[in-house]
């Protein structure tokens, strides 16, 4: 325990964990918006590579969910 941790009535790391989780929660919302927007873009322009671009967006969303769960567990 660091010297400044003893001075505080609460755990700074718990607050930081809360901050990380709130930030990640907002980021997951942003990732959902990206998935939706890519679907809309793919409707505007349909090409043979659209499935790959949608996959990128979904992988990004999945990655952000995994990081959220990882942060919840490990912090």
């Amino acid at each position, binding site marked *: 325990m*660091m010297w400044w941790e003893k001075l505080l009535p609460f755990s700074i*790391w718990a607050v*930081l964990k809360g901050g*990380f989780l709130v*930030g*990640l929660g907002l*980021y997951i919302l*942003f*990732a959902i*918006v*990206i998935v939706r*927007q*890519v679907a*809309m*873009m793919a*409707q*505007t*322009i*349909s*090409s*043979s*590579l659209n499935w790959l*671009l949608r996959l*990128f*967006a979904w992988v*990004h969303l999945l*990655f*952000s969910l995994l*990081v959220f769960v*990882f*942060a919840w567990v*490990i*912090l």
Partner: protein
Amino acid sequence: MAEKVIFSSRKKEPKASSVVNQEAQKKVRKKKSSFATKGTRGIRREIYRLLKDGGEKRGIFVPRPRDFAFENQMPKEKIILLLRRHWITNLSWLFVVVLMSGVPLLLKNFPPFIFFPFPFRLVGVMIWYLFVFAVFLEHFFSWYFSVNIITDERIVDIDFISLIHKRISEAKIENIQDVTYKMGGLLGTVFNFGTVYIQTAAEKPEFEFEKVANPALVVKVLERMKFEEEKEKIEGRVR
């Protein structure tokens, strides 16, 4: 004594001068079939030949793209050319993304990061790379989905300014009044890309095909398309 005259029953051979005339007429007919006097089919064939000779540049200059369609495309409307910004214009943000990827490696031994426990540093790095991935995706999607399309009836400019802003402009080929292009700078000259400016009589008076490959050829194609539309009007085949 008078000489006997023998009449031949052979057919008279054509005069040399009429053969020369026929050859000359053939040459004149060949000369006359230039671009200006071709029918619409001939003009279209010439456009396709120009595009074929110009060469396809994967993803950024695609003549007659297969497996491609856009919103509001009419059932019989054919796409003549699909354009995107030259790939070299992506180098600036790609460089930034690469730099951003290296930040955790540079800062791992510097305060305040060294005071954080390992789990926090690990999650922090993961969040940073998530953010870098998002920046990459945003720029890539912006580049990929922002296209300029020339069809047999109109020009379409689709711009995705960011992930949430979209702008689609279109104008009929017959409303095109003037087409020019601007090419400059070291990269533009070396990689042959520039901006094509199209003045129209449509609601949007000027279109810009920004930083497209082979702008001179794009201008040529648009001029031929305009001429083809005028010919179609005269022939009464306007759709």
